């Protein structure tokens, strides 16, 4: 019997400070035992428990794509005890990683469809995983048009800046990056995510919208997609609840009969409608 509470040993291989405020960093981990990488086979949309012995664990969405071999990445905002300790770490430090946990973005359901990705703030992490997965090599053929709408409060708060530039160069991707307010050097779009969605107006034909962001963004973005004619089955999102075990035992993260850690975190709006509105 595998003990699901014991983390895989990992080493902090690389730390990238993502934003000007320095409170969001991407951590790249390598497995201490190379054979663990295969055991950690994951799908975009899943999460892991970052485990710092002596501090505790935090559930964090996997930001890298399974097509990136040799490491796993997580983008973490400094918040409380565990995330703070993580932010103070140096490259070369040993720690633990559990997972992969939860369901995932519904790749089979997405195949053959036009994909609209909407992300706000630092909730963009598992969407980045999904984008990198879909555009990798032959994978790209399995999906229709890919439209990305991604917003941050200001240019300094955009994640994955180098990647955004690379993506914008591709002809098979429609990338729309926006900031609430630009600065002296910003030449891109200005405006809130819901407004940009209205402007870009992706077609509902054979399309699925995958939406992740802070609650206010979601609240104002959903009506735009309803107006565009997207059904609740075709709008997918990811939930957050306080977690501990990550495997449906500790009883902490349920929304109705479903555990967000085990049955989620990804749900369609149609599925959420069947649950209790307690999240």
């Amino acid at each position: 019997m595998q003990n699901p509470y014991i983390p895989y040993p990992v080493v902090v291989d690389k730390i990238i400070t993502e934003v000007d405020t320095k409170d969001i960093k991407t951590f790249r981990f390598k497995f201490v035992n190379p054979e663990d990488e295969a055991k950690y086979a994951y799908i975009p949309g899943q999460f892991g428990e970052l485990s710092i012995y002596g501090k505790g664990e935090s559930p964090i969405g996997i930001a890298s794509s399974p097509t990136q071999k040799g490491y796993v990445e997580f983008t973490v905002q400094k918040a409380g005890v565990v995330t703070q300790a993580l932010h103070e770490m140096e490259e070369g430090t040993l720690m633990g990683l559990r997972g992969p946990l939860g369901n995932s973005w519904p790749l089979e359901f997405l195949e053959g469809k036009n994909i609209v990705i909407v992300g706000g703030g630092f909730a963009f992490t598992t969407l980045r995983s999904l984008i990198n997965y879909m555009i990798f090599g032959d994978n790209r053929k399995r999906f229709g048009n890919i439209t990305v709408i991604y917003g941050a409060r200001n240019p300094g708060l955009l994640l994955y800046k180098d990647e955004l530039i690379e993506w914008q160069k591709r002809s098979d991707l429609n990338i729309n990056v926006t900031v609430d307010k630009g600065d002296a050097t910003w030449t891109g779009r200005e405006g809130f995510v819901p407004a940009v969605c209205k402007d870009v107006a992706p077609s509902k034909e054979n399309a699925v919208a995958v939406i992740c962001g802070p609650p206010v963004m979601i609240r104002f973005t959903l009506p735009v997609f309803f107006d565009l004619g997207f059904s609740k089955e075709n709008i997918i999102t990811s939930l957050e609840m306080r977690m501990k075990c990550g495997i449906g035992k500790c009883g902490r993260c349920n929304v109705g009969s479903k555990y967000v850690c085990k049955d989620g975190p990804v749900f369609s709006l149609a599925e959420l409608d069947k649950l209790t509105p307690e999240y």
Partner: protein
Amino acid sequence: MEKRLIKKDALAGIAKKMAEEFLVWAPIKKEDNVLFEPLQKDGEPFFAYLNSKNAPKNVFFPHTEALMKFTRTEKGMVFSSDENKADSSVLFGVRPCDAHSFALLDKLFDQEKYQDAYYITKRQNTTVISIACVKPPYASCFCTSVDGAPVASEGADILLTDIGSDYLVELVTPKGEKLAKYFGDAKADAAADTKKNEIAAKAIEAIKSKIPAHEVKPILDKNFDNPFWNTIHGKCLACGTCTYMCPTCHCFDISDEVKGGDGVRIRSWDSCMFPMFTKETSGHNPRVSQKERWRQRTMHKFKYYVDNFNAIACVGCGRCVMSCPVNIDIRKVVEDISKL
């Protein structure tokens, strides 16, 4: 099924004999309470008890337990040992409702995906011996409303029933049969069976407290927003006693403790009745008041567990009813829901 008869006064001797070979958890009298504790060499089990003050879930799911240890190195704290271990043991003399709770906890901790190693190891290494309630111990017992009975073996490996002069010993599972040698060689005859069945029927009759536990499921399905939920929690102190006493409540916390260079990751009971239980770092709390927490507790037992495992997560032991400092009674809550 293998069945034996033993003399009624033989029980304590059997428990003590087992204790020479295994860790034996037995009912022990402690001042006014009876608790399941390891039977010590000079200890005396107390079988003339009603029910134990605390639920015996502690044996498989301790109030606090070490999950793993870790140690400091130059490159950071690293894992040092898995603390998943369990002595070969016997849980001697639990009531049928509490044995039933083990069968319910198994559904959660021993799922196909994600097996809880700590719970399962203890469960596998422990033989459960139940003593039937020939006379239901409390007026608040309502096991018959929640798929249990005062004389029943679900969740137990061996069932002992007082049939007058003797105990009828039923070795229900292969695990129970392995302890056959402790129960002498007097085979039970058909008369003993008949006697037991009569006693079982009478004991069911004697349970007077009844709740419409099955009827409320379809009502709960539709009434998450009913104003009724404003009416339960007013007095609740959020003390968590009800959940700590409950044999089926299984919520836990995981935390790390460090002393010097070494440390231990532990899990300990937690409670959905505590305000912090679902509070996120951002300050957001999906269950803002005691109303939502009481709704969660009720829903978890009578709807969510049924949705997920096709079983009600209450065994009718009445501990929460007897222990709540402000006398909130889950039986009344269920009764009221049935009238919505």
